[in-house]
């Protein structure tokens, strides 16, 4: 059985949701969600790690700034460098950037408010450990909810990301022709001012992925806007079984 670790820091919120998403993806008993505690420098033998959303340590200094120093993160960085698949969602993405596993940083939304809405994303890269179940160019609908979601990096880094195909998800943003209505209804304007509308990126190996929107909140149309997010969790199970 595939074991996927889900980290809980003080202030983590979406750990229950990430664990549920793993259970949904592994319905037939193929996967188990393993709780990991911030203070333990121990990954409990898991095959992959999810750093979930929330407000670790209140996000008081900078989102992710304090969590990156937690004992468990030392192990995550070590394992990631050896090829373990790691997914950072929202606060998890911020933590992966702060800890240097992914380039760039996430700043306060350009609108200065917390934004919670259903957001269309375009899958730009389906060759990562977490996105193989999607078709390239597919558009998926998942919740976005954060205060610090504006992805920034210097121009050289952005060009490198683009050049190597490491932008995994982009916000679908319609910039309508004057006098024309935007094509899509939900989240058609830029939700946070992210540079080049970047919603998620990967490291050069395609095994470490971070994104701001919440695929774990889109696994069942009963409690989310769609079940489009489930593909990410199914993808990693495929990747681990194939390995």
């Amino acid at each position, binding site marked *: 059985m595939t074991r996927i670790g889900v980290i809980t820091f003080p202030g983590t919120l979406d750990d229950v949701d990430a664990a549920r998403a793993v259970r949904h993806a592994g319905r037939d008993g193929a996967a188990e969600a393993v709780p990991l505690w911030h203070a333990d420098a121990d990954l409990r033998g898991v095959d992959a790690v999810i750093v979930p959303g929330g407000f670790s340590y209140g996000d008081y200094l900078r989102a992710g700034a304090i969590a990156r120093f937690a004992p468990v993160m030392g192990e995550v960085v070590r394992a990631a460098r050896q090829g373990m698949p790691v997914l950072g969602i929202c606060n998890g993405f911020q933590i992966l950037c702060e800890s240097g596993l992914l380039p760039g940083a996430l700043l306060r939304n350009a609108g200065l408010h*917390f934004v*919670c809405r259903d957001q269309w994303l375009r899958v730009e890269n389906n060759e990562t450990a977490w996105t193989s179940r999607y078709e390239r160019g597919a558009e998926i609908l998942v919740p976005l909810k954060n205060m610090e979601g504006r992805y920034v990096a210097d121009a050289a880094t952005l060009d490198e990301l683009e050049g190597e195909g490491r932008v995994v998800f982009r916000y679908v943003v319609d910039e309508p022709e004057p006098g024309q209505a935007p094509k899509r209804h939900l989240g058609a304007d830029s939700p946070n001012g992210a540079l080049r509308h970047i919603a998620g990126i990967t490291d050069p190996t395609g095994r470490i992925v971070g994104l701001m929107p919440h695929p774990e909140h889109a696994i069942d149309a009963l409690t989310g806007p769609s079940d489009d997010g489930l593909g990410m969790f199914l993808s990693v199970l495929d990747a681990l079984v194939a390995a």
Partner: protein
Amino acid sequence: MTGGSKTKTIDNDGAAAVLVDSVEHAAATPEHPQPYRELGLKDDEYARIREILGRRPTDAELAMYSVMWSEHCSYKSSKVHLRYFGETTTDEMKAKMLAGIGENAGVVDIGDGWAVTFKVESHNHPSYVEPYQGAATGVGGIVRDILAMGARPVAVMDPLRFGPADAPDTRRVLPGVVAGIGGYGNCLGLPNIGGEVVFDASYAGNPLVNALCVGSMRVEDLHLAHASGTGNKVILFGARTGLDGIGGVSVLASDTFSGDESGTGRKKLPSVQVGDPFTEKVLIECCLELFRSGLVVGIQDLGGAGLSCATSELASAGDGGMRVELDRVPLRAEGMTPAEILSSESQERMCAVVRPEDVDAFLRVCAKWDVTATVIGEVTDTGRLEITWHGETVVDVPPRTVAHEGPVYERPVERPASQDALVADTPDRLARPSAPAELRETLLRMIASPNLCSRRWVTDQYDRYVRGNTVLAQPADSGMVRIDEETGRGVAVSTDCNGRYVRLDPYTGTQLALAEAYRNVAVTGATPLAVTNCLNFGSPEDPGVMWQFEQAVRGLADGCRELGIPVTGGNVSFYNQTGDTAILPTPVVGVLGVIDDVRRRIPTGFGAEAGETLLLLGE
């Protein structure tokens, strides 16, 4: 201190010297003048305290009585009316009620061994002074109330009222309030599943910020606030106690009343508190682990009136008394006096009663969550609440006299003479659109009006997805959350109130609020079970306002009896007025319903499939 009396100076761990007005000292200085009026006590109330104690109160006792006997804590003007809720609740209505009025929050049995607790509370005035922090700490307070019942908080809602949308002050208040509710609730990981935004000129200097929280638990995990079992320990845990949110009590240490040069002489302390949602989130998880481990005998949150309230309520609900060593309370500021410590409304604190053999395990759980926890006292069999400060007794009172036996007023009630004219002024004299162009214009004006337009600017700032159990949130008529993932059992909640209807006819207007919330719950497919309320009114000293209040309570209670669901709790907020002008009477009514499988919910809207038949029910 004036009057040539001697006070003892005690060194507080090497910090600034603090003057301590002990019980002994109070007994010896009966004539010592006390600033009870500045603390909001009337002459006869002060006289009653002296009678209860057989001496003058100490500074610390005076601080306790004054906050606990305030309108906010003692319900002194509303008590006689609120009794009507109890009188009209039949046994049949009580069948599913596990805890009702008088507890921190009402609890109902929703079946399959699940219980749900819910309550609304106001944080109106603080939100006007400091919109962000006022609203944030409003959410924090109601969440702790729910937690103290033994439940996991699972959702919040926020009925809001503001002045005109285009008024400059609304531009200050509204964004701050919304950001504060979002900032706190989002960080706690509680989905916001609904609320209201209403604009009316009467709320211009007095916005209403009501916050509702829903919690769930297994029936057997219900915790009630009581301190029983002599020898059990009292543990204060969570944030440290500081000088913020002390408000009026600072007069006890003000220049005027500590004429002694060495007095701390604090001038003006901020009555605003700053919330720390991260600390609260950790406190929630810590409490839930303590409950699960069976380490809690009784528990109480610290809200308004801080330790004064928690200690006196825990003690009077128990079977004995309580002794507290106040100098053990972890402080954030230097040189705090006992009165200040007892009155501080510092947020994110809880107080638990724990068996002596469980104390170590309790402290271990707190340490795991990095939550500061301190044994501050124990349950006694004396029937008295005794509080010491470095060995000196500064409080020695019968706890019930503080917590429950405060003054009760029968305020004058009078239907205002102007009411007839108001009612006679019907909409009949308004011009009606008739031509299509007029209709079109009216419709456009209506959908663009602040009271009817989209609420997305507000609701987009609230996380409605967290915890993955939200089945309905905006723009649905009720919020709905799944409680049991296996069976799909869940609850729906709606809050409503149209203050203009209530102003016209408080009795029927309140029934309309109840009926609307009831319908909003029913249309989702849930069965209404219980009612909570937040009664926002003007000054109780105005007989016209008291009439509105009395009528509203009667209307709500009679309506509930008619519908067969009980009022399980609520909150009264008086003095909502600007100058002499009261707000529209605003009894916000919340109805909670149960649905045995949320997959069978009925979403809002129609037209999903072609060929649907549209039926109109009712007249």
